[in-house]
């Protein structure tokens, strides 16, 4: 039962990554959007090579949230075109496995974008953001998981809605605000000269809590949302 769940999720991830590797449609648009975001803020917040306070932390998470919304908005487009979603739903597989597969695909995409924009932020804002890579990695991994888990659910829910591009951010941002705030606060601590590891871990712990809540609710509601 569990192995079948994993098998279906893996099939979905593999399929999404294969398509993305060929088209690079989502990756390029998401990366371009995130990099543009960082660049525009760099012009606004850096003057005479002196960035304003801890703006880099907020800009990192804004770039992730905006680029993530773009990626999530297109996450189910491939299933919507040619009515493939119905073929997936007809499969005798656990429907939450489809959700997990799509979620992992989005996370892989955002992870690659983050690997590129974090050094960009470090460069443009002259911040020691990469001084504690494991803690930063923990914050980004947990924050991205929380954001993408809700986003994937909403993207699936809105796949048949005509105004889905407008509705997705409207629904997504209010719910994921706690994740973004926890991510920003944790990242701000990483930029301090004296890092408070306990507090960073506390923010990571809070992100883990949000992840557990969001993923549990998403797994619980995905099947009824997709059924009719």
């Amino acid at each position, binding site marked *: 039962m569990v192995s079948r769940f994993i098998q*279906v999720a893996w099939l979905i991830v593999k399929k999404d990554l294969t398509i993305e590797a060929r*088209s690079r449609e989502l990756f390029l648009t998401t990366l371009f959007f995130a990099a543009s975001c960082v660049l525009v803020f760099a012009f606004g917040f850096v003057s005479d090579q002196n960035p304003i306070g801890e703006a880099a932390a907020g800009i990192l998470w804004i770039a992730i949230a905006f680029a993530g919304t773009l990626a999530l908005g297109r996450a189910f487009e*491939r299933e919507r075109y*040619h009515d493939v979603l119905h*073929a997936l739903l007809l*499969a*005798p597989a656990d429907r939450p496995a489809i959700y997990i597969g799509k979620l992992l695909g989005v996370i892989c995409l955002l992870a690659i974008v983050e690997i590129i924009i974090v050094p960009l932020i470090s460069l443009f804002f002259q911040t020691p953001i990469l001084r504690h890579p494991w803690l930063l990695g923990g914050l980004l991994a947990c924050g991205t998981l929380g954001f993408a888990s809700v986003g994937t659910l909403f993207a699936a829910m809105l796949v048949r809605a005509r105004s889905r591009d407008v509705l997705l951010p409207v629904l997504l941002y209010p719910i994921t605000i706690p994740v973004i705030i926890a991510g920003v606060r944790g990242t701000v601590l990483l930029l301090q000269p004296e890092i408070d590891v306990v507090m960073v871990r506390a923010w990571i712990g809070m992100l883990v809590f949000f992840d557990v809540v969001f993923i549990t609710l998403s797994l619980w509601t995905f099947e009824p949302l997709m059924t*009719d």
Partner: protein
Amino acid sequence: MAEPAVSAPTVKSVMSTSQFSDAFDCLAFEDVSRYFGRMRALSHVSFSCMAGEIVGVLGPNGAGKSTLLALAATLISPSAGGIRYGNHGTHERGGNVRANIGMLSHDTQLYPELTARENLHFFAGLFGVQDPASCAEAALSRSALRARGDEPVMKFSRGMRQRLALERALIHDPKLVLLDEPFTGLDDSSSKSLANRLQGLRDSGRIILLTTHDFEAAEGLLDRVALLWDGALLNVEPVTGSLRDHYVSHTRQVARTVKVSK
């Protein structure tokens, strides 16, 4: 490749639901209604299809044919009434039921960026087929697309996509086959191949429910015809004579009745 024989009996008479014994030997709509908001798509539809039978669902555009297939495929639920799959209850719509259903919809339900082989391999895995690779190869051979199996589907013609889509729908050897306009985009020779394929499925005891407007392609293929009109089932009867004549005579009669009642 010949279809594997199944033990389901080839029965063409309509049975009452109490007679259903073996799993998935029939599909029965029991007083099914379906509403989308306030719009009525289907109203009190009751009929059965048996193993080894091809039933055509005919009717004008908007009559409710696709809704009927979507209901049978478990993609939507009835607003009232129920659908029985063999000895599976009317509220059973889980994996056990879905594993026995294959559906070809209006769209091809294929990923255009993936190759034909990758599409078949993916869906074979998704439907839990034991050996997805060999199953995909067999399906490519059946659709006469083996030579182009490594080309992305987006490069295929409409007819080739349709042939591939049919094999995608049948990849897990379903007992209930639902086909929405299966002859769309097919040339004469492909239509004949599809008709032969469907006859093979019927002979191996599958239940086949299809909608079509292509009367010539479906001529001689259907055992019974269910005529839908504005969401209501007018009749389900064996086809005698030409399919087009059968359809035209019934629809004229209904149109006259509607006109008189107005």
